[in-house]
């Protein structure tokens, strides 16, 4: 369970958000510039927060203006916008960099079908392949929480649909809390167990009853 209370002064408004995420996919939805990436960075420990508290399972990561756990120890997997793959390392070296167990990483590689790309470099693979590599790289660290920052925005429609299926399959198998940032409404309908709507620096939660099913082509 992730419990977040975060306050941060941004250039044009104050971010003051409170929300919880269980073993579900929570979609953080809002327009560009509403602070979504800031929230993810605050949870990951990559940006300073002014006040609040962040708890992940039994651990307090941040409280009363102080980071209590450094970035490296938060056990938060993060799939960045534009994927942030290491350009000087192959697909396998990217995945291997932070993986905890090789057998688990290989299982993910099979599941997400990147086995034929392991010796290639990021500039040699497609957008969808980069996205899958970045997802495997994040999950191979065996995080307690997964953060995804607009992971599908650069993909074409067909690749997006494949990626939605893969994310749902990954979540079905490994039930960790996931926060997905998007400003695409259809991704809310397709993927969210819960929606966190950003407005004026605050969040309104909405639990969804039904998720539109995508026929699994895998």
């Amino acid at each position, binding site marked *: 369970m992730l419990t977040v209370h975060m306050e941060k002064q941004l250039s044009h408004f104050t971010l003051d958000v409170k929300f919880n995420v269980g073993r579900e996919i929570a979609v953080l939805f809002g327009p560009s510039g509403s602070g979504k990436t800031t929230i993810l960075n605050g949870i990951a420990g*990559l940006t300073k927060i002014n006040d609040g508290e962040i708890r992940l399972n039994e651990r307090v990561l941040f409280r009363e203006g102080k980071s209590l756990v450094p*970035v*490296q120890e938060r056990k938060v997997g993060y799939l960045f916008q534009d994927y*942030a793959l290491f*350009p000087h390392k192959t697909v396998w070296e990217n995945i291997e960099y932070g993986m905890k167990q090789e057998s688990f990483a290989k299982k993910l590689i099979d599941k997400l079908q990147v086995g034929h790309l392991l010796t290639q470099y990021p500039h040699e693979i497609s957008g969808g392949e980069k996205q899958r590599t970045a997802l495997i790289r994040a999950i191979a660290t065996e995080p307690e929480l997964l953060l995804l920052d607009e992971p599908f925005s650069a993909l074409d429609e067909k690749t997006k649909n494949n990626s939605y299926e893969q994310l749902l399959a990954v979540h079905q198998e490994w039930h960790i809390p996931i926060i997905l940032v998007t400003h695409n409404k259809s991704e809310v309908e397709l993927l969210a167990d819960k929606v966190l709507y950003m407005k004026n620096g605050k969040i309104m939660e909405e639990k969804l009853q039904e998720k539109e099913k995508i026929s699994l082509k895998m």
Partner: protein
Amino acid sequence: MEHINFFPLWLSLKTAGISTVVVFLSGVFLAYIIARKVFVGKSVVEAIFLLPLVLPPTVVGFGLLYLFGKNGIIGKLLMDLFDFQIVFTWYGAVIASIVVSFPLMYQSASAAFQQYDKNIENAALTMGKSRWKVFWTISFPLAWPGLLAGLVLAFARGLGEFGATLMLAGYIPNATDTIPLAIYFAVESGKMDVAKFWVMIIVALGFFAILWLNWWSARNMMKHSR
């Protein structure tokens, strides 16, 4: 042709070599911690770092004399505490080289650390790696082409330093006569053949340094766009 004393060659390579090592380590370190941060006074700090690029060498030399001269703030301290002198020694030539070549290294390193997405480092941190490990395995390799360019430029600049060296280290044959000083004083004393010899040496050193760097950069670009 007059017999050539090769001491200036060894002295130049020694002083430029030492100054390049110092400048590389300090330039890379400062560029890494400063370049991508935003803080009050950053532009002032960077203006100070880059100042020797735009100042006349005599101004740089004057400043160094003020600091390291026999009555200078640091010079006097070194003499009183350690009986150690900077002026009119080859150490002065090293310091002059460091001051004039540092801006080139800092600028190259600064650009090198800013040319890749910072999220690449953030990703490595979230994967459990220490900042030191992230620097060695991610930041340094990605910045290396730019760092190497800075290193070669800093070496070439250090090798060619004249004005500030003359003011701080002076011209003492077989002690502080780097190649540029040897050229100047050879011309002054009418030894044109000696001057020509050293001019060819330093042009060759500079030319082959730049040629090698261009070749290496082109090869590196080809390797990453295959």
